[in-house]
């Protein structure tokens, strides 16, 4: 089946939000999605965009059961390592279930890898949930190394009230 990868356009944001929600459902964390079409558009199409996105599109005759032709996306951005310099971070990689097994995920990831190489990035980084065996196998098959297991890196966040308290110079939970 023919599938074209192209940069996301502003008018694709509604479709990308749909798929972001589908991915969150799969990751068993749907209540955490607060993003809207408008915010995604503002943040992705600003002067200095906060993210970049590729979408996978199929011709109309192959559209999904629900009538969608945008069937996958890869959302990424550039990060920096004080040891090695520029990196590329793959934040989301998703293909609608009915379009899996056709190499679309691999195509998206390869394109992001290519963009990384073109921009002199030393590494690609991303996170995966520990129970997502299918994804872990897929990534390890492409040379990915689990740094949490190998080097003990844990991912932390500081948000909400804790962040506000810190900004006021206060300690506390």
């Amino acid at each position, binding site marked *: 089946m023919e599938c074209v990868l192209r940069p996301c356009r502003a008018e694709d944001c509604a479709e990308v939000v749909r798929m972001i929600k589908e991915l969150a459902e799969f990751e068993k964390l749907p209540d955490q999605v607060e993003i809207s079409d408008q915010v995604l558009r503002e*943040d992705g199409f600003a002067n200095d965009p906060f993210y970049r996105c590729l979408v996978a599109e199929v011709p109309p005759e192959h559209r999904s059961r629900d009538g969608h032709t945008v069937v996958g996306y890869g959302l990424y951005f550039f990060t920096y390592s004080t040891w090695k310099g520029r990196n590329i971070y793959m934040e989301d990689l998703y293909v609608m279930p009915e379009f899996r097994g056709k190499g679309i995920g691999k195509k998206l990831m390869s394109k992001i890898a290519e963009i990384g190489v073109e921009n002199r990035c030393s*590494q690609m980084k991303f996170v*995966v949930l520990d129970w997502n065996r299918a994804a872990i196998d897929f990534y390890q098959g492409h040379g990915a190394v*689990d740094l949490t297991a190998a080097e003990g890196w844990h*991912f*932390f*966040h500081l948000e909400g009230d804790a*962040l506000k308290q810190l900004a006021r110079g206060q300690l506390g939970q």
Partner: protein
Amino acid sequence: MAPFRIRKARPEDCPDLLRLIKELAKYEDMEDQVVLTEKDLLEDGFGEHPFYHCLVAEVPGEQWTAEGHLIVGFAMYYFTYDPWIGKLLYLEDFFVMPEFRGLGIGSEILKNLSQVALKCRCSSMHFVVAEWNEPSIRFYKRRGASDLSTEEGWRLFKIDKEHLLKMATEE
């Protein structure tokens, strides 16, 4: 004179930044992994589209620079994106020279970073910590940070350039 001052890094700070980066790498037993140069830091941090931002902590010290200051700490950060909630501030590196700890420099840097995060409408500050680094884990947890690897099962992965090239060029 104030014991220390936090300010935005300037292009001329790059040699000091690299010095501190190497000191931190040494503390993590990874000194030989630092391949970054002053030129990289300059190009990538002070060009038209910076890849990172930096705060530095300086203390007065007559024997050092012409202005009489020594850079004793830094924090490198950049903006990332969570498709569920939007903009985030990512803290890449955070270091204060051992002989200048206990003055409140770390806390002040973190306070500054939090203010930047809120001003830029970031929902959260993210970072990684090595599980053996108990002092850092305590430092961050005291300030309300949560370990998402433990709580939600997120594991950090990397793919090196060699494999990126392979993926990028194979049919």
